């Protein structure tokens, strides 16, 4: 039996078990942990299917950021699920019917991995060949292996090429959506009511007894780890053209480093390292960088987000440069928005 398929089936069974267990769990904190296990399993499944970028996102957003955000939400609503009264027969019938219809629909789908499936034939070959909108360069023939920049004619990670180049508009507006989500949170949660003196936020900045403060071991090791997380985030950011990764994942990682810092040393210490105005600034700076790259392309005589206009002599290098700039914008916005969300939901002084 094919080892990849065998692992796939086992992992899928485990993922279904974890999802069912998370639903049946009455203790919401247990549910959060089981959801963490579930999204970790999904990350392994995506990786097993060679969907590296999806797996990366699932591991960083699903298992990391979502866990922290759900925990923040639990600090507001408590950890007990309201019991009883949520079993409705019509709802069950409806759900089962929908499931049957969906299962029936899958019988019409092409076989898994079928090379003749419409998705493989329509536009995917062009994406894989990366020949859409490419400026043909007369100086070097297109098939010379070392003619163009670092990457030859291709950006090795097709996902990044599609994300940042062919679907550049989509990604720009995705970044704008994330930005506006952050803006909405800033506007909605600006004046935070101190609910009551005994409200303890998750980082307990100097409010509870000294005995419960974090251990020296954890602080030392965690503090040592933070620079490495930042370096790894930077690697993921810059390596997006070659391996899995890119702005979205790197942004979450960088935010995670600062979240870890605030968990270990308290929020006031983090604010000293990373002032709030800097986070607010980075949020809008990211979108500005993305759109600014597009405008710069126009200023150099190309279309909006047509990176090859940045350097007519070396279009492939200009392409890589444009993608790097755009990804940096995405990373800045994502990191600062995640940090803003966590800080705002935590509540506290302002």
């Amino acid at each position, binding site marked *: 039996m094919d080892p990849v398929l065998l692992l796939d089936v086992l992992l899928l069974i485990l993922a279904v078990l974890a999802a069912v267990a998370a639903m049946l769990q009455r203790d919401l904190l247990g549910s959060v942990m089981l959801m963490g296990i579930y999204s970790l399993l999904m990350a392994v499944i995506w990786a097993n299917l060679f969907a590296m970028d999806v797996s990366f996102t699932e591991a960083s957003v699903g298992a990391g950021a979502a866990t922290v955000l759900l925990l923040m939400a639990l600090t507001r609503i408590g950890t007990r699920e309201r019991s009883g009264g949520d079993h409705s027969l019509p709802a069950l019938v409806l759900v089962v019917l929908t499931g049957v219809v969906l299962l029936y629909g899958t019988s019409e789908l092409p076989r898994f991995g079928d090379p003749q499936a419409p998705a493989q034939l329509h536009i995917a070959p062009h994406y894989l060949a990366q020949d859409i909108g490419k400026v043909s360069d007369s100086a070097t023939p297109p098939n010379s292996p070392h003619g163009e920049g670092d990457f030859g004619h291709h950006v090795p990670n097709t996902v990044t090429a599609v994300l940042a180049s062919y679907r550049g508009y989509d990604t720009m507006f995705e970044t704008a959506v994330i930005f506006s989500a952050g803006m909405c949170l800033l506007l909605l949660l600006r004046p935070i009511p101190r609910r009551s003196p005994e409200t303890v936020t998750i980082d307990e900045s100097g409010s509870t007894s000294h*005995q419960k403060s974090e251990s020296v*071991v954890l602080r030392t090791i965690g503090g040592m780890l933070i620079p*490495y997380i930042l370096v790894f985030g930077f690697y993921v950011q810059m390596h997006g053209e070659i391996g899995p990764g890119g702005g979205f994942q790197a942004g979450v990682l960088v935010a995670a480093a600062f979240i870890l810092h605030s968990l270990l040393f308290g929020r006031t210490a983090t604010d000293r390292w990373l002032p709030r105005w800097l986070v607010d600034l980075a949020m809008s700076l990211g979108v500005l960088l993305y759109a600014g790259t597009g405008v710069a392309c126009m200023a150099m005589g190309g279309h909006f987000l047509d990176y090859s206009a940045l350097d007519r002599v070396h279009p492939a290098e200009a392409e890589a440069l444009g993608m790097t700039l755009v990804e940096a914008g995405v990373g800045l916005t994502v990191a600062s928005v995640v940090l803003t969300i966590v800080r705002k939901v935590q509540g506290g002084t302002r």
Partner: protein
Amino acid sequence: MEMISDGLLLLGGFVAFSGALGVLRMPDFYSRLHPAGTADTLAQLLVIGGLVLRHLDSTGDSLLVVGKLIAISVLLMVTTPTATHAISRAAHLSGLAPWTRRSTDLEEQEESP
């Protein structure tokens, strides 16, 4: 080389499995710490060691992959004991009592609701 890396991988898998078995079967939290912390640290060393040998054996180049594998190993070697320590410390500070043969009946009464 092939034999050694196979052996390391299988041994690592066995240690990982038996560690998890300990986490499942041990009677209380503090005794579960032992298989969780130590077995996982050993298992990842064996597995990553086997993979490094396998990689060096098959290709002989690409130091990036070996470097990443070693980075994973060092990362796990540092974080797993730290996390285990932090969990056990938190449990101890919260007043969770260790299991003894005498306290079994009492514990089960506490755990049931």
